């Protein structure tokens, strides 16, 4: 029967197209309480962003650890190159005047 053969071919096509196709990795960021920022708490696999959010909710907020979830496909994250850590981050360590503790203020001045 021609129709059944067609469906069989379609199925075969889908099978080979989806061979070994893994769900992509998503990085999960959770805000545990309003007022705090989102923090990276790990990753998981999901086929799309809706699944990623649902999975993140099930995996990372089971103990009421969150009020907001961000999900980002890992491939969209650009990371700084650790080999360049020296030029990226060390200069800031020398410029200690950026930190408030560098300045000494008289005791009478409160809340600063």
């Amino acid at each position, binding site marked *: 029967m021609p129709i059944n053969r067609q469906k069989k071919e379609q*199925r075969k096509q*889908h099978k080979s197209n989806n061979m070994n196709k893994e769900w992509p990795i998503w990085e999960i960021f959770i805000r545990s309480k309003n007022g705090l920022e989102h923090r990276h708490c790990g990753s*998981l696999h*999901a086929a799309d962003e*809706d*699944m990623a959010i*649902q*999975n993140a909710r*099930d995996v990372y907020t*089971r103990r009421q650890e969150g009020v907001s979830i961000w999900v980002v496909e890992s491939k969209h994250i650009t990371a700084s190159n650790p080999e360049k850590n020296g030029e990226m981050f060390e200069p800031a360590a020398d410029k200690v005047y950026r930190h408030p503790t560098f300045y000494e203020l008289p005791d009478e001045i409160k809340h600063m």
Partner: protein
Amino acid sequence: MLHEKLYDYLLHLGDNSMILGQRLGELCGHGPELETDIALTNISLDLFGQVRNYFQAAAQIKGGDATEDSVAMLRYEHEYKNTYLVEQPNEDFAHVIVRQFFFDVYHQLILNELMNSKNETLVAIAKKSIKEVDYHVDFSSTWVKRLGDGTEESHEKAQTAVSTLWRYSMELFKATETESWAAESRVGPDLDQLKSVYLERVSSILKEATLSLPEETVFQYGAKTGRHSENMGYILAEFQYMQRAYPNMKW
């Protein structure tokens, strides 16, 4: 007696969640992906949480030495009020999802009604449960679409599940004596009124999922009045085993 009827109604509400939760619990460790395993277990946990609420209230009504556990585990098969739908086996993932979907849409509808119940306990339970069930509906609807509109293979399996399980759907809306009493006393919903909304919602998701309802269906009724399918005996054999083998003990 009012109390007897309320007790019976609580069993109606609890038994569906309980048997469905039991079926989902069987899947632990066997899901298609770890993440899905966690999601299905979450739903099972939510359902059992609801069961505990219903049956703690039921035990109070029954009095004596009744507990949530004696109510849950020590009835005879014909005393359980769950529907055929939730007894159906975990045939494959498509069956699991479609069974869940058919139940979730109904569950959401009745919980919304129960939030306006004249019975305060039911209002409280409903208010807590609706948040969980809103999520269940989201979850199962999305998966129905994924399977229906995924690959050819998933479409076939999803369609088979729909065709197999649809015959158990209308029992959800056929009121037993107790459910009629509940509607009259405004303790519970008028199930008949909810049928058309249910059909709309189910049809709409199935359409998006490129799935169709079977054309002619002979709907099955009877489980709610104690005439269960052959599945029920085996479910209860596992569920009740410890309580029956080691009677009157604390765990």
